[in-house]
């Protein structure tokens, strides 16, 4: 099952209730986190997709299992333009010719709906506590959706003694190569 930060049960509810409930549930969620909406109304997929884009959330995808639709929505897709502070950057084109570890710091659900094959998933919020899973001597290419979270992640790794860390710019939103799904 795809990991989400919050779950909403909208099973058995007909339109408009799945969207109404989602709208209320996402209010309490922190920006950048992922809500899973369970629904049985088939129309909920098209409606949640269109609703999310109209209010600026990021619709990640839907998985159908035993007549239940599991929709994944990340709160607030308009990432703030922050000044990139990490100096060592590489482009997506350069990334393709490099060896080393691709570290994907997006939320687990974002990763699940499409990532570069072989990339390791550690969401930004978990990086500090899971840093020991990484090899300090390996070359690490940190990637997220637009380059902001990966910038912060690269700084955090460098501050903790990782020598060969690169921030991949811009991010998965501009990646045209193959992706793999994971669910």
């Amino acid at each position, binding site marked *: 099952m795809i990991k989400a930060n919050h779950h909403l049960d909208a099973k058995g509810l007909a*339109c*408009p209730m799945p969207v109404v409930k989602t709208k209320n549930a996402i209010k309490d969620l922190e920006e950048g986190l992922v809500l899973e909406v369970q629904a049985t109304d088939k*129309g909920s997929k*098209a*409606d949640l997709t*269109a609703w999310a884009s109209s209010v600026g959330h990021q619709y990640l995808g839907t998985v159908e299992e035993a007549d239940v639709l599991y929709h994944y929505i990340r709160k607030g897709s308009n990432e703030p333009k922050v000044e990139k502070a990490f100096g060592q950057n590489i482009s997506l084109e350069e990334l393709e010719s490099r060896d080393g570890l691709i570290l994907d710091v997006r939320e687990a659900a974002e990763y699940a709906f499409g990532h570069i094959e072989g990339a390791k998933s550690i969401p930004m919020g978990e990086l500090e506590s899971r840093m020991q899973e990484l090899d300090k001597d390996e070359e690490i290419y940190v990637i997220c959706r637009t380059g902001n979270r990966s910038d912060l992640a690269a700084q955090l790794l460098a501050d903790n003694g990782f020598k060969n860390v690169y921030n991949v710019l811009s991010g998965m939103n501009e990646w045209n190569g193959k992706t793999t799904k994971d669910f």
Partner: protein
Amino acid sequence: MTAQKWSAAKVARKVIDNEELFILDVRNEDAFQDWKIEGHKFDYLNVPYFELLDGVEEILPQLPTDKEVLVVCAKEGSSVMVAEMLAEAGREAAYLKGGMKSWSSYLEPVKVADLNNGGELYQFVRLGKGCLSYMVISEGEAAIIDAVRFTDVFIDFAKEKGVEIKHVFDTHLHADHISGGRHIAAATGATYYLPPEDATEVVFEYTALTDDLNVKIGASQIDVNALYSPGHTIGSTSFVIDDKFLLTGDILFIDSIGRPDLAGVAEDWVGDLRETLYSRYRKLAEDLVVLPAHFMIIDELNEDGTVARRLGDLFKENHGLNIKDEEEFRRTVTDNLPPQPNSHERIRQVNMGKVAPDHNEQTEMEIGPNRCAVR
């Protein structure tokens, strides 16, 4: 003020009676673009319901106060919500009971003509989907042609008229909607006919509908004559009724012609289509009134709600009957075709009796426009 509930029948009357109506369609934009309730004098505003969750104030200036306003959504729920919000804001508003689902299913029986010796011919107009079915009535007997899947409507109508359904025909194996033909036959003991060329894969019993088959309805013998007219499908058959009406199935429409590609073999059938439209039909009397199995746009409806036009007029006005060059005709009906109807392959499977989805799934499969024609 409370929101009013309107039935699909009420909306259908407004379409047929050419009345004005303002429709606030609260479905997604692409759903609205793809398919909506069409009326000669209808105006529209499309705002998805999820943009109105915080209130309807912003759209109030766009809603007329001198016209009835009907809120429409896919199933009903969202339109009830929005109509109630409008009512609370002091506006009169109604919602469509059952939403576009019920609109897609609604049939309006319209009398086309009186036939010899007290006979009658009815056209069942499915406004939401553009399907047309027919019932010929004469002296206690009835024949049905191209029945859609709402079998009760036909069976109840026959009861109301005090007639026994004796013959049920499908002009061809339909790909855009689910046929009710064989189910009506099974329920009433009528004979069910299907062209054998279209029936090679069907898994039920049927009576072969062949060229020149003649069936009499009632004691005064209203003639129903079959005329083999392939092109939309290889088995497509037309009917001449009472020497006055030509039921063309999906071969010839009012403002368009049939498409040859829904069974996946456009190139093979385009020659048949040409032969039917430019040779077989040319030999018929121009005063025959064409009654097709579909209409595509609301402008094809006559003042009285029927879809019917003199064959001679169509020879003059229908673009598809006026393409002199064979090669150009071939290109017109094989290139640049509109998208194929929703679930057309699966609908064919249902009509062959190979699969039997439940009522809800059948409704879902038929949602959307019919797209059987080439203009």
